[in-house]
Protein backbone atom coordinates (compact mmCIF):
# COMPACT_ATOMS: atom_id res chain seq x y z
CA UNK A 1 0.00 0.00 0.00
CA UNK A 2 1.31 3.42 -0.86
CA UNK A 3 1.36 6.30 1.60
CA UNK A 4 -0.32 8.52 -0.94
CA UNK A 5 -3.70 10.02 -0.27
CA UNK A 6 -6.71 8.70 -2.12
CA UNK A 7 -9.63 10.71 -3.39
CA UNK A 8 -13.23 9.71 -2.70
CA UNK A 9 -13.35 8.23 -6.22
CA UNK A 10 -10.31 5.97 -5.80
CA UNK A 11 -12.26 2.71 -5.53
CA UNK A 12 -14.14 3.61 -8.70
CA UNK A 13 -10.87 4.16 -10.60
CA UNK A 14 -9.65 0.74 -9.54
CA UNK A 15 -12.95 -0.86 -10.51
CA UNK A 16 -12.76 0.80 -13.91
CA UNK A 17 -9.28 -0.69 -14.44
CA UNK A 18 -7.31 2.55 -14.21
CA UNK A 19 -3.54 2.62 -14.18
CA UNK A 20 -2.76 4.44 -10.94
CA UNK A 21 0.23 6.78 -10.54
CA UNK A 22 1.39 9.04 -7.74
CA UNK A 23 0.53 12.67 -8.46
CA UNK A 24 0.84 15.60 -6.03
CA UNK A 25 0.71 13.24 -3.06
CA UNK A 26 -2.34 11.33 -4.34
CA UNK A 27 -2.81 8.01 -6.07
CA UNK A 28 -4.50 9.15 -9.28
CA UNK A 29 -5.66 7.48 -12.51
CA UNK A 30 -3.28 8.34 -15.37
CA UNK A 31 -5.34 6.34 -17.86
CA UNK A 32 -8.11 3.78 -18.08
CA UNK A 33 -8.20 0.71 -20.37
CA UNK A 34 -9.37 2.97 -23.24
CA UNK A 35 -5.89 4.55 -23.37
CA UNK A 36 -4.72 8.16 -23.52
CA UNK A 37 -5.36 8.74 -27.26
CA UNK A 38 -8.90 7.37 -27.24
CA UNK A 39 -9.67 9.15 -23.95
CA UNK A 40 -8.46 12.42 -25.44
CA UNK A 41 -10.53 11.97 -28.59
CA UNK A 42 -13.58 10.88 -26.65
CA UNK A 43 -13.47 14.09 -24.60
CA UNK A 44 -13.18 16.25 -27.75
CA UNK A 45 -16.10 14.45 -29.41
CA UNK A 46 -18.37 13.41 -26.55
CA UNK A 47 -17.82 13.90 -22.83
CA UNK A 48 -15.11 12.88 -20.40
CA UNK A 49 -15.38 12.49 -16.63
CA UNK A 50 -12.27 13.45 -14.66
CA UNK A 51 -11.55 13.07 -10.96
CA UNK A 52 -10.00 16.37 -9.91
CA UNK A 53 -10.71 15.93 -6.20
CA UNK A 54 -7.00 16.29 -5.45
CA UNK A 55 -7.29 19.99 -6.17
CA UNK A 56 -7.72 22.35 -3.24
CA UNK A 57 -11.14 23.83 -2.54
CA UNK A 58 -11.73 26.47 0.11
CA UNK A 59 -14.15 29.18 1.14
CA UNK A 60 -12.72 32.50 2.25
CA UNK A 61 -15.10 34.39 4.54
CA UNK A 62 -14.69 37.99 5.63
CA UNK A 63 -14.07 38.41 9.38
CA UNK A 64 -17.04 40.76 9.66
CA UNK A 65 -19.76 42.38 7.57
CA UNK A 66 -17.67 45.53 7.03
CA UNK A 67 -14.85 43.75 5.18
CA UNK A 68 -14.96 43.93 1.39
CA UNK A 69 -13.58 40.46 0.64
CA UNK A 70 -12.97 41.13 -3.06
CA UNK A 71 -10.93 44.23 -2.28
CA UNK A 72 -8.99 42.34 0.41
CA UNK A 73 -8.19 39.43 -1.91
CA UNK A 74 -7.06 41.78 -4.70
CA UNK A 75 -3.92 42.24 -2.60
CA UNK A 76 -2.95 38.62 -3.40
CA UNK A 77 -3.98 38.39 -7.06
CA UNK A 78 -3.88 40.72 -10.07
CA UNK A 79 -7.47 39.98 -11.16
CA UNK A 80 -10.15 42.61 -10.85
CA UNK A 81 -12.53 41.19 -8.25
CA UNK A 82 -14.43 44.20 -6.88
CA UNK A 83 -16.78 44.07 -9.88
CA UNK A 84 -17.14 40.27 -9.79
CA UNK A 85 -20.84 39.46 -9.49
CA UNK A 86 -22.22 36.78 -7.18
CA UNK A 87 -21.69 33.24 -8.58
CA UNK A 88 -19.29 34.50 -11.27
CA UNK A 89 -15.83 32.97 -11.63
CA UNK A 90 -12.52 34.52 -12.59
CA UNK A 91 -9.13 32.94 -13.40
CA UNK A 92 -6.20 34.52 -11.62
CA UNK A 93 -2.72 34.09 -10.20
CA UNK A 94 -1.50 34.01 -6.63
CA UNK A 95 1.46 36.36 -6.74
CA UNK A 96 4.88 36.17 -5.10
CA UNK A 97 6.96 39.16 -3.91
CA UNK A 98 9.28 38.79 -6.92
CA UNK A 99 6.37 39.33 -9.33
CA UNK A 100 6.29 35.64 -10.19
CA UNK A 101 3.52 33.10 -9.80
CA UNK A 102 2.83 31.03 -6.65
CA UNK A 103 -0.11 29.27 -8.29
CA UNK A 104 -3.00 29.82 -10.66
CA UNK A 105 -6.52 29.52 -9.35
CA UNK A 106 -10.24 29.99 -9.91
CA UNK A 107 -12.02 32.60 -7.78
CA UNK A 108 -15.81 32.69 -7.48
CA UNK A 109 -17.87 35.18 -5.47
CA UNK A 110 -20.39 33.42 -3.24
CA UNK A 111 -23.39 35.07 -1.60
CA UNK A 112 -22.93 36.56 1.88
CA UNK A 113 -23.13 34.20 4.83
CA UNK A 114 -25.87 34.39 7.49
CA UNK A 115 -23.96 37.18 9.27
CA UNK A 116 -23.71 39.30 6.15
CA UNK A 117 -20.02 38.47 5.64
CA UNK A 118 -18.79 38.34 2.05
CA UNK A 119 -17.30 35.09 0.74
CA UNK A 120 -15.14 33.76 -2.09
CA UNK A 121 -14.86 30.14 -3.27
CA UNK A 122 -11.31 29.22 -4.33
CA UNK A 123 -10.03 26.25 -6.33
CA UNK A 124 -6.24 25.85 -6.44
CA UNK A 125 -3.77 23.26 -7.78
CA UNK A 126 -3.22 20.04 -5.84
CA UNK A 127 0.55 20.37 -5.68
CA UNK A 128 0.37 23.89 -4.24
CA UNK A 129 -2.68 23.75 -2.03
CA UNK A 130 -1.02 23.56 1.38
CA UNK A 131 1.38 26.41 0.60
CA UNK A 132 -1.41 28.43 -1.03
CA UNK A 133 -3.79 28.08 1.87
CA UNK A 134 -1.12 28.96 4.41
CA UNK A 135 -0.14 32.01 2.36
CA UNK A 136 -3.74 33.20 2.03
CA UNK A 137 -4.38 32.63 5.73
CA UNK A 138 -1.30 34.63 6.69
CA UNK A 139 -1.89 37.47 4.26
CA UNK A 140 -5.52 37.92 5.32
CA UNK A 141 -5.05 37.17 9.01
CA UNK A 142 -7.69 39.06 10.99
CA UNK A 143 -9.45 40.10 7.79
CA UNK A 144 -10.84 36.79 6.66
CA UNK A 145 -10.94 33.13 7.61
CA UNK A 146 -10.22 30.27 5.25
CA UNK A 147 -12.23 27.07 5.49
CA UNK A 148 -10.65 24.22 3.53
CA UNK A 149 -13.34 22.01 2.02
CA UNK A 150 -12.87 18.25 2.13
CA UNK A 151 -15.08 17.56 -0.86
CA UNK A 152 -14.75 15.67 -4.12
CA UNK A 153 -14.48 17.52 -7.42
CA UNK A 154 -15.68 15.83 -10.60
CA UNK A 155 -15.11 17.44 -13.99
CA UNK A 156 -17.39 16.63 -16.93
CA UNK A 157 -15.85 18.04 -20.11
CA UNK A 158 -16.66 17.90 -23.79
CA UNK A 159 -19.21 19.05 -26.37
CA UNK A 160 -21.85 16.69 -24.91
CA UNK A 161 -21.15 17.55 -21.25
CA UNK A 162 -23.99 20.08 -20.97
CA UNK A 163 -26.68 17.90 -22.54
CA UNK A 164 -25.73 14.94 -20.34
CA UNK A 165 -25.50 16.88 -17.09
CA UNK A 166 -28.77 18.70 -17.94
CA UNK A 167 -30.57 15.33 -17.99
CA UNK A 168 -29.93 15.23 -14.24
CA UNK A 169 -29.62 18.94 -13.43
CA UNK A 170 -31.73 20.83 -16.03
CA UNK A 171 -30.67 24.33 -14.97
CA UNK A 172 -27.06 23.84 -16.13
CA UNK A 173 -28.16 23.92 -19.80
CA UNK A 174 -28.12 27.71 -19.88
CA UNK A 175 -25.62 28.35 -17.07
CA UNK A 176 -23.10 30.98 -18.26
CA UNK A 177 -19.46 30.05 -18.84
CA UNK A 178 -17.31 30.98 -15.81
CA UNK A 179 -20.17 30.89 -13.32
CA UNK A 180 -21.35 28.51 -10.60
CA UNK A 181 -24.75 27.28 -9.52
CA UNK A 182 -25.86 25.76 -6.23
CA UNK A 183 -28.04 22.73 -6.72
CA UNK A 184 -29.99 20.59 -4.30
CA UNK A 185 -29.74 17.18 -5.97
CA UNK A 186 -32.02 14.78 -4.09
CA UNK A 187 -30.78 16.22 -0.81
CA UNK A 188 -27.11 16.37 -1.87
CA UNK A 189 -25.75 19.86 -2.26
CA UNK A 190 -23.76 20.36 -5.47
CA UNK A 191 -21.69 23.38 -6.45
CA UNK A 192 -21.50 23.26 -10.24
CA UNK A 193 -18.97 25.51 -11.99
CA UNK A 194 -19.06 25.90 -15.78
CA UNK A 195 -15.36 25.91 -16.56
CA UNK A 196 -12.60 23.41 -17.16
CA UNK A 197 -9.14 22.59 -18.37
CA UNK A 198 -9.73 20.92 -21.73
CA UNK A 199 -10.76 23.83 -23.98
CA UNK A 200 -14.19 22.25 -24.26
CA UNK A 201 -17.46 23.27 -22.70
CA UNK A 202 -17.88 21.57 -19.37
CA UNK A 203 -18.37 21.61 -15.64
CA UNK A 204 -16.58 21.00 -12.39
CA UNK A 205 -18.92 19.61 -9.79
CA UNK A 206 -18.08 19.91 -6.11
CA UNK A 207 -19.83 17.20 -4.10
CA UNK A 208 -19.65 15.59 -0.65
CA UNK A 209 -17.08 12.76 -0.60
CA UNK A 210 -19.62 10.12 0.38
CA UNK A 211 -21.87 10.96 -2.57
CA UNK A 212 -19.10 11.22 -5.19
CA UNK A 213 -18.96 7.66 -6.53
CA UNK A 214 -22.73 7.41 -6.86
CA UNK A 215 -22.88 10.68 -8.77
CA UNK A 216 -19.93 9.76 -10.99
CA UNK A 217 -21.61 6.44 -11.82
CA UNK A 218 -24.81 8.25 -12.71
CA UNK A 219 -22.87 10.22 -15.36
CA UNK A 220 -20.79 7.22 -16.50
CA UNK A 221 -23.96 5.25 -17.26
CA UNK A 222 -24.40 7.39 -20.35
CA UNK A 223 -22.70 5.99 -23.46
CA UNK A 224 -21.41 9.49 -24.24
CA UNK A 225 -19.41 9.63 -20.98
CA UNK A 226 -16.09 7.86 -20.37
CA UNK A 227 -13.71 8.14 -17.41
CA UNK A 228 -10.60 10.06 -18.45
CA UNK A 229 -7.19 10.00 -16.77
CA UNK A 230 -4.48 12.57 -16.12
CA UNK A 231 -2.66 11.59 -19.33
CA UNK A 232 -5.42 12.84 -21.60
CA UNK A 233 -6.08 15.78 -19.27
CA UNK A 234 -2.54 16.94 -20.05
CA UNK A 235 -2.76 16.56 -23.84
CA UNK A 236 -6.19 18.22 -23.88
CA UNK A 237 -4.99 21.29 -22.01
CA UNK A 238 -1.75 21.55 -24.01
CA UNK A 239 -3.65 21.56 -27.32
CA UNK A 240 -5.66 24.58 -26.19
CA UNK A 241 -2.60 26.39 -24.84
CA UNK A 242 -3.47 26.28 -21.13
CA UNK A 243 -0.62 26.50 -18.63
CA UNK A 244 0.25 23.68 -16.24
CA UNK A 245 1.50 25.08 -12.95
CA UNK A 246 4.98 23.86 -12.00
CA UNK A 247 5.86 23.48 -15.69
CA UNK A 248 4.71 26.44 -17.82
CA UNK A 249 4.38 28.86 -14.92
CA UNK A 250 6.05 28.86 -11.51
CA UNK A 251 7.91 31.02 -9.02
CA UNK A 252 10.48 31.96 -11.70
CA UNK A 253 8.00 33.22 -14.33
CA UNK A 254 6.00 36.42 -14.16
CA UNK A 255 2.61 37.04 -15.81
CA UNK A 256 4.11 39.22 -18.56
CA UNK A 257 6.60 36.54 -19.63
CA UNK A 258 3.90 33.89 -19.30
CA UNK A 259 1.69 35.86 -21.71
CA UNK A 260 -1.08 35.99 -19.12
CA UNK A 261 -1.64 39.75 -19.26
CA UNK A 262 -5.23 39.11 -20.37
CA UNK A 263 -5.82 38.09 -16.74
CA UNK A 264 -4.85 41.59 -15.51
CA UNK A 265 -7.37 44.27 -16.47
CA UNK A 266 -6.71 47.95 -17.17
CA UNK A 267 -7.51 49.20 -13.67
CA UNK A 268 -5.19 46.70 -11.99
CA UNK A 269 -2.41 47.46 -14.49
CA UNK A 270 -2.72 51.12 -13.58
CA UNK A 271 -3.27 50.80 -9.85
CA UNK A 272 -1.22 47.73 -9.03
CA UNK A 273 -1.80 47.08 -5.34
CA UNK A 274 -1.10 43.33 -5.48
CA UNK A 275 1.91 41.42 -4.19
CA UNK A 276 4.75 41.75 -6.71
CA UNK A 277 2.96 44.54 -8.58
CA UNK A 278 6.04 46.80 -8.76
CA UNK A 279 7.89 44.22 -10.82
CA UNK A 280 4.89 43.23 -12.94
CA UNK A 281 4.02 46.87 -13.77
CA UNK A 282 7.65 47.56 -14.61
CA UNK A 283 7.66 44.52 -16.92
CA UNK A 284 4.48 45.73 -18.61
CA UNK A 285 6.12 49.14 -19.13
CA UNK A 286 9.50 47.87 -20.36
CA UNK A 287 8.44 44.58 -21.92
CA UNK A 288 9.69 41.16 -20.88
CA UNK A 289 12.99 39.69 -22.04
CA UNK A 290 11.34 36.38 -22.90
CA UNK A 291 7.84 35.12 -23.54
CA UNK A 292 5.82 31.91 -23.47
CA UNK A 293 5.02 30.82 -27.02
CA UNK A 294 3.58 27.88 -28.92
CA UNK A 295 6.05 25.68 -30.78
CA UNK A 296 5.36 23.27 -33.62
CA UNK A 297 8.08 20.68 -34.24
CA UNK A 298 8.38 19.61 -37.87
CA UNK A 299 7.89 15.92 -38.52
CA UNK A 300 6.47 13.51 -36.00
CA UNK A 301 8.99 13.50 -33.15
CA UNK A 302 7.60 15.08 -29.97
CA UNK A 303 9.85 17.46 -28.04
CA UNK A 304 9.36 17.09 -24.31
CA UNK A 305 9.69 19.41 -21.32
CA UNK A 306 13.27 20.78 -20.83
CA UNK A 307 14.15 20.38 -24.54
CA UNK A 308 16.50 23.26 -25.37
CA UNK A 309 15.49 25.70 -28.09
CA UNK A 310 18.15 27.20 -30.40
CA UNK A 311 18.07 29.96 -32.98
CA UNK A 312 19.03 29.08 -36.56
CA UNK A 313 22.39 30.71 -35.83
CA UNK A 314 23.01 28.21 -33.06
CA UNK A 315 22.40 30.38 -30.01
CA UNK A 316 20.38 28.94 -27.12
CA UNK A 317 17.20 31.00 -26.87
CA UNK A 318 14.97 29.05 -24.52
CA UNK A 319 13.45 25.82 -23.32
CA UNK A 320 10.27 23.83 -23.78
CA UNK A 321 8.06 23.70 -20.68
CA UNK A 322 5.34 21.34 -21.97
CA UNK A 323 5.56 19.15 -25.03
CA UNK A 324 4.03 16.05 -26.45
CA UNK A 325 1.68 14.72 -29.05
CA UNK A 326 -1.61 16.48 -29.79
CA UNK A 327 -4.10 13.77 -30.79
CA UNK A 328 -6.71 16.22 -32.14
CA UNK A 329 -4.03 18.40 -33.73
CA UNK A 330 -2.53 15.27 -35.23
CA UNK A 331 1.13 15.89 -34.51
CA UNK A 332 3.67 17.00 -31.95
CA UNK A 333 2.99 20.29 -30.14
CA UNK A 334 4.80 22.20 -27.43
CA UNK A 335 4.98 25.43 -25.48
CA UNK A 336 7.96 27.08 -23.92
CA UNK A 337 9.84 30.28 -23.30
CA UNK A 338 12.07 31.97 -25.89
CA UNK A 339 14.01 35.24 -25.90
CA UNK A 340 11.76 38.11 -26.94
CA UNK A 341 13.31 38.67 -30.40
CA UNK A 342 12.33 35.12 -31.41
CA UNK A 343 8.65 35.23 -30.40
CA UNK A 344 7.08 36.18 -33.75
CA UNK A 345 4.77 33.55 -35.21
CA UNK A 346 6.58 31.59 -37.90
CA UNK A 347 10.10 32.16 -36.54
CA UNK A 348 12.21 29.12 -37.40
CA UNK A 349 14.10 27.52 -34.55
CA UNK A 350 15.84 24.24 -33.74
CA UNK A 351 14.91 21.89 -30.91
CA UNK A 352 17.71 19.79 -29.49
CA UNK A 353 16.12 16.34 -29.17
CA UNK A 354 18.54 13.58 -28.11
CA UNK A 355 21.52 15.55 -29.34
CA UNK A 356 20.03 16.23 -32.77
CA UNK A 357 18.78 19.62 -33.97
CA UNK A 358 15.21 19.23 -35.17
CA UNK A 359 13.51 22.11 -37.00
CA UNK A 360 10.43 23.76 -35.46
CA UNK A 361 8.45 26.97 -35.78
CA UNK A 362 7.03 29.42 -33.27
CA UNK A 363 3.25 29.05 -33.60
CA UNK A 364 0.06 30.65 -32.39
CA UNK A 365 -1.87 29.00 -29.56
CA UNK A 366 -4.31 27.42 -29.09
CA UNK A 367 -3.32 24.61 -31.46
CA UNK A 368 -6.93 23.40 -31.45
CA UNK A 369 -9.80 25.94 -31.19
CA UNK A 370 -11.37 26.41 -27.77
CA UNK A 371 -15.01 25.43 -27.72
CA UNK A 372 -16.51 27.17 -24.68
CA UNK A 373 -20.23 27.71 -24.11
CA UNK A 374 -21.69 30.83 -25.68
CA UNK A 375 -25.42 31.36 -25.26
Amino acid at each position, binding site marked *: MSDNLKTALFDLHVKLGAKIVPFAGYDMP*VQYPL*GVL*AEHNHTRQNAGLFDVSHMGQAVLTAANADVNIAEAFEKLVPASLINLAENRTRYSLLMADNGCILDDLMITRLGEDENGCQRLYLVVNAGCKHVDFEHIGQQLSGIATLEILDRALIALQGPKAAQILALHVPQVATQPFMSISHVDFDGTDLVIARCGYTGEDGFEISIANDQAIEFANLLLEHDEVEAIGL*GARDSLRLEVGLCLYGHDIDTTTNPVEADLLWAINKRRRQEGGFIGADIVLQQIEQGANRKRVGILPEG*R*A*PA*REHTEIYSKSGQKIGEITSG*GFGPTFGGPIAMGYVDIEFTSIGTEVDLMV*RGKARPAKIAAMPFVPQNYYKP
Partner: protein
Amino acid sequence: MSKFYTEDHEYAFIDGDIATIGVSHHAQDQLGDVVFVELPEKGTTFEKGDEIAVVESVKAASEVYTAVAGEVIEVNSLLEDAPETVNAGAETVGWFIKIKMSNTADTEGLLDETAYQTHIAD
Protein backbone atom coordinates in the same frame (compact mmCIF):
# COMPACT_ATOMS: atom_id res chain seq x y z
CA MET B 1 12.69 -19.06 -35.71
CA SER B 2 13.71 -18.79 -32.05
CA LYS B 3 12.15 -16.15 -29.82
CA PHE B 4 14.32 -14.39 -27.24
CA TYR B 5 13.53 -11.52 -24.90
CA THR B 6 15.43 -9.22 -22.53
CA GLU B 7 14.24 -8.45 -19.04
CA ASP B 8 13.65 -4.91 -20.32
CA HIS B 9 11.04 -6.14 -22.80
CA GLU B 10 12.94 -6.00 -26.07
CA TYR B 11 12.83 -9.06 -28.29
CA ALA B 12 15.18 -10.69 -30.79
CA PHE B 13 13.46 -13.22 -33.02
CA ILE B 14 16.23 -15.19 -34.64
CA ASP B 15 16.21 -17.00 -37.98
CA GLY B 16 19.69 -18.25 -38.94
CA ASP B 17 21.96 -15.23 -38.35
CA ILE B 18 19.19 -12.65 -38.87
CA ALA B 19 17.58 -11.14 -35.75
CA THR B 20 14.32 -9.17 -35.89
CA ILE B 21 14.37 -6.61 -33.07
CA GLY B 22 11.41 -4.89 -31.45
CA VAL B 23 9.54 -4.39 -28.18
CA SER B 24 7.28 -7.00 -26.65
CA HIS B 25 3.51 -6.94 -26.58
CA HIS B 26 3.75 -6.33 -22.84
CA ALA B 27 6.05 -3.33 -23.46
CA GLN B 28 3.69 -1.67 -25.95
CA ASP B 29 0.88 -2.13 -23.45
CA GLN B 30 2.95 -0.42 -20.75
CA LEU B 31 4.06 2.36 -23.11
CA GLY B 32 0.55 3.25 -24.22
CA ASP B 33 -0.22 4.79 -27.59
CA VAL B 34 2.98 5.06 -29.62
CA VAL B 35 3.21 8.31 -31.61
CA PHE B 36 6.79 8.23 -32.92
CA VAL B 37 9.63 5.75 -33.31
CA GLU B 38 13.14 6.95 -34.03
CA LEU B 39 14.99 4.18 -35.86
CA PRO B 40 18.65 3.85 -36.87
CA GLU B 41 19.80 3.89 -40.48
CA LYS B 42 20.40 0.81 -42.54
CA GLY B 43 24.09 -0.13 -42.44
CA THR B 44 24.65 1.01 -38.84
CA THR B 45 26.45 -1.50 -36.65
CA PHE B 46 25.65 -2.04 -33.00
CA GLU B 47 27.17 -3.87 -30.06
CA LYS B 48 24.96 -5.98 -27.80
CA GLY B 49 23.18 -3.62 -25.40
CA ASP B 50 23.51 -0.49 -27.58
CA GLU B 51 20.58 1.90 -27.85
CA ILE B 52 19.01 1.34 -31.27
CA ALA B 53 15.75 3.26 -31.11
CA VAL B 54 13.57 5.61 -29.10
CA VAL B 55 9.85 5.04 -28.74
CA GLU B 56 7.70 8.06 -27.98
CA SER B 57 4.29 7.31 -26.55
CA VAL B 58 1.71 9.91 -25.61
CA LYS B 59 3.26 9.76 -22.15
CA ALA B 60 7.03 9.64 -22.52
CA ALA B 61 10.11 8.72 -24.51
CA SER B 62 11.71 5.30 -23.89
CA GLU B 63 15.02 3.97 -25.20
CA VAL B 64 15.19 0.58 -26.86
CA TYR B 65 18.38 -1.53 -26.75
CA THR B 66 19.47 -4.41 -28.94
CA ALA B 67 19.92 -7.85 -27.42
CA VAL B 68 22.36 -8.88 -30.14
CA ALA B 69 25.29 -7.29 -32.00
CA GLY B 70 25.49 -6.79 -35.74
CA GLU B 71 24.63 -4.65 -38.74
CA VAL B 72 21.20 -3.21 -39.50
CA ILE B 73 20.07 -4.71 -42.81
CA GLU B 74 16.49 -3.48 -42.77
CA VAL B 75 14.38 -0.94 -40.88
CA ASN B 76 10.58 -1.11 -40.65
CA SER B 77 9.59 1.90 -42.77
CA LEU B 78 5.95 1.35 -41.81
CA LEU B 79 6.68 2.87 -38.40
CA GLU B 80 7.68 6.20 -39.92
CA ASP B 81 4.14 7.14 -40.99
CA ALA B 82 2.22 4.72 -38.79
CA PRO B 83 3.97 4.42 -35.41
CA GLU B 84 0.71 3.08 -33.95
CA THR B 85 1.63 -0.18 -35.75
CA VAL B 86 3.72 -0.92 -32.63
CA ASN B 87 0.51 -1.05 -30.60
CA ALA B 88 -1.34 -2.99 -33.25
CA GLY B 89 1.25 -5.77 -33.48
CA ALA B 90 4.39 -5.26 -31.44
CA GLU B 91 5.74 -8.76 -32.08
CA THR B 92 4.51 -9.03 -35.69
CA VAL B 93 4.04 -6.06 -38.06
CA GLY B 94 5.41 -3.60 -35.49
CA TRP B 95 9.04 -4.84 -35.50
CA PHE B 96 11.79 -2.18 -35.52
CA ILE B 97 14.88 -3.43 -37.36
CA LYS B 98 16.54 -6.56 -38.74
CA ILE B 99 20.15 -7.18 -37.75
CA LYS B 100 22.69 -9.48 -39.39
CA MET B 101 24.23 -10.93 -36.26
CA SER B 102 27.98 -10.71 -35.85
CA ASN B 103 27.92 -13.29 -33.05
CA THR B 104 25.20 -15.94 -32.94
CA ALA B 105 26.23 -16.76 -29.35
CA ASP B 106 24.69 -13.41 -28.27
CA THR B 107 21.46 -15.22 -27.43
CA GLU B 108 23.10 -16.69 -24.32
CA GLY B 109 21.64 -15.12 -21.23
CA LEU B 110 18.45 -13.99 -22.98
CA LEU B 111 15.05 -15.22 -21.87
CA ASP B 112 13.13 -17.70 -23.98
CA GLU B 113 9.40 -17.23 -24.44
CA THR B 114 8.42 -19.23 -21.38
CA ALA B 115 10.97 -17.51 -19.15
CA TYR B 116 9.83 -14.11 -20.43
CA GLN B 117 6.17 -14.87 -19.74
CA THR B 118 7.17 -15.84 -16.19
CA HIS B 119 9.23 -12.67 -15.90
CA ILE B 120 6.32 -10.36 -16.82
CA ALA B 121 3.90 -12.30 -14.63
CA ASP B 122 6.05 -11.55 -11.55
